[in-house]
């Protein structure tokens, strides 16, 4: 029903914009990862695999990448442990309060990411709220110093930030489960426990996958929370990229790391997509 001119008018402008500002930059990133820097700090535009070789050879790179993945995995697990039961409670048990509680989960998202990370810093610091509170009630006599500038602080903060993000798709998936399925399961003699594991949980898996992917990918690429709260032991892979693009001035190596991250993210996305497809029955 739409004429060719109409289809061209809606297709060409976004296509051109996306090509120039997304496709081209990603391609550039790819190219950079095969270039190098001369001793006079200039980009050498000749192709080499040196950057990728360096990634494998220098321990700090792949170790940091592994540590980042471990931090992201913990964030994902904690977000799911906090988010899933909450989503389940809201969707199935909250009754009339459902909408209000839903809004309460959303509202923290409107507070700046940076500000929330900063708030955790003021809570966890050695003369921060938590430590002074503990001393005030005489639970400790010295400030606990593992709280701030540690992977713990990073995981805690990122969990705080990504819990609402994991909650949202899980809640949406639970809301889409027809309630008569639950009744049918009971009617057929399943106990509440069996009903949950055999009917509700399998049908909510696409939501779990979407939420988990989101939490994992975004916390994997984070560089602000580690910089603010991580200390030396909480450094993540993106911090290395930032320093390579800044003070260390080695864009090609930074590009190579970024490209590995990009590839990792794309692989995870397609994995989660195919799993989601497998678990959605509509």
């Amino acid at each position: 029903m739409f004429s060719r001119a109409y289809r061209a008018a809606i297709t060409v402008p976004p296509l051109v914009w996306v090509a120039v500002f997304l496709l081209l930059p990603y391609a550039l990133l790819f190219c950079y990862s095969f270039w190098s820097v001369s001793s006079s700090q200039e980009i050498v535009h000749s192709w080499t695999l040196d950057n990728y070789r360096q990634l494998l050879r220098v321990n700090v790179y792949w170790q940091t990448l592994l540590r980042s993945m471990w931090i992201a995995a913990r964030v994902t697990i904690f977000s799911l442990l906090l988010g899933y039961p909450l989503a389940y409670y809201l969707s199935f048990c909250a009754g009339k309060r459902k909408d209000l509680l839903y809004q309460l989960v959303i509202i923290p998202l409107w507070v700046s990411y940076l500000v929330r990370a900063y708030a955790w810093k003021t809570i966890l610091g050695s003369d921060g709220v938590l430590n002074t509170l503990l001393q005030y009630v005489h639970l400790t006599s010295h400030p606990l110093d593992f709280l701030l500038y540690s992977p713990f602080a990073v995981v805690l903060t990122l969990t705080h930030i990504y819990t609402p993000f994991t909650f949202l798709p899980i809640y949406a998936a639970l809301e889409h489960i027809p309630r008569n399925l639950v009744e049918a399961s009971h009617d057929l003699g399943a106990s509440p426990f069996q009903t949950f594991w055999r009917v509700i949980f399998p049908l909510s898996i696409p939501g779990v996958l979407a939420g988990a992917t989101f939490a994992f990918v975004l916390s994997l690429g984070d560089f602000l929370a580690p910089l603010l709260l991580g200390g030396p032991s909480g450094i993540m892979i993106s911090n290395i990229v930032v320093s390579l693009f800044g003070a260390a001035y080695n864009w090609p190596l930074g590009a190579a790391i970024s490209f590995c991250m990009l590839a990792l993210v794309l692989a995870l996305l397609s994995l989660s997509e195919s799993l989601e497809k497998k678990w959605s029955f509509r």
Partner: protein
Amino acid sequence: MELSMNQRERTVPTSRWLPWHAIVVFAFLYLPIVTLIVYSFNGSGVGGFPPRDLTLNWYRQLFADDAIWTSVLNSLLVAFAAMAISLAFGIPAALALDRANFPGKALFRRLVLLPLILPGIITGLSLLMLFQAGNVKLSLLTIVLGHGTALISVATTEVFAGLQKLDRTQEEASLDLGANYWQTFWRVTLPNLRLSIIGAALLIFTLSMDEIAVSFFLIGRDNTLPLEIWGRLRRGITPEINAISTIIFIFSLAAIVTWYRLRAKAEPELIL
């Protein structure tokens, strides 16, 4: 929180631990926000329990702080411009995904939506390389281009969802009555997508106001608010940041409430 369950809900598997779990999660989510607000009134600075010497000093100091307000203005400027770009390209992109077939459509869909899930650092870096290759001086303009591009994904997903709900015969009726494609777009398609577009605009606006990963790499001389805050955080903690955050939080809260009022008023009319 007591459980008030009716007959229907009693058939649902539940546990008495669930409400307690919900309370814990909400406490976790709100603890930093409450701390932030409380300590914006704390005379002896951030940290230190219990809070004492309630004061409005930090707010007074904040209102006299020109650098912060300049960055707020910059952020507003960037957010509006990014909103314009994202909508101008995101709405057609959603229409194209809905109703046009062209080679590379799958790749296009993936590319448009990628910034939604990709860590901001990658988008920021690749754009930095683009601007460097094109000899574009970093400024607020490069941030606008960065935000605009990354947030097309938001406009596209919101509007695409709206299009799925749009009754196609509405547009056919318009063409049938003699309106050409352009008139049909303005008189029927766009008004029907009104809520999705307003929703997308609000979301883009707030995301842009808060964005830091992309801006971090594309910043020129002028700071946006998150970058200004970031700079100060690196120099040390100051309750002024609590004060500005509290103000922004209250503004956002007002925006959400307005948005829900608006939607509640508009929605019944949209259901034919």
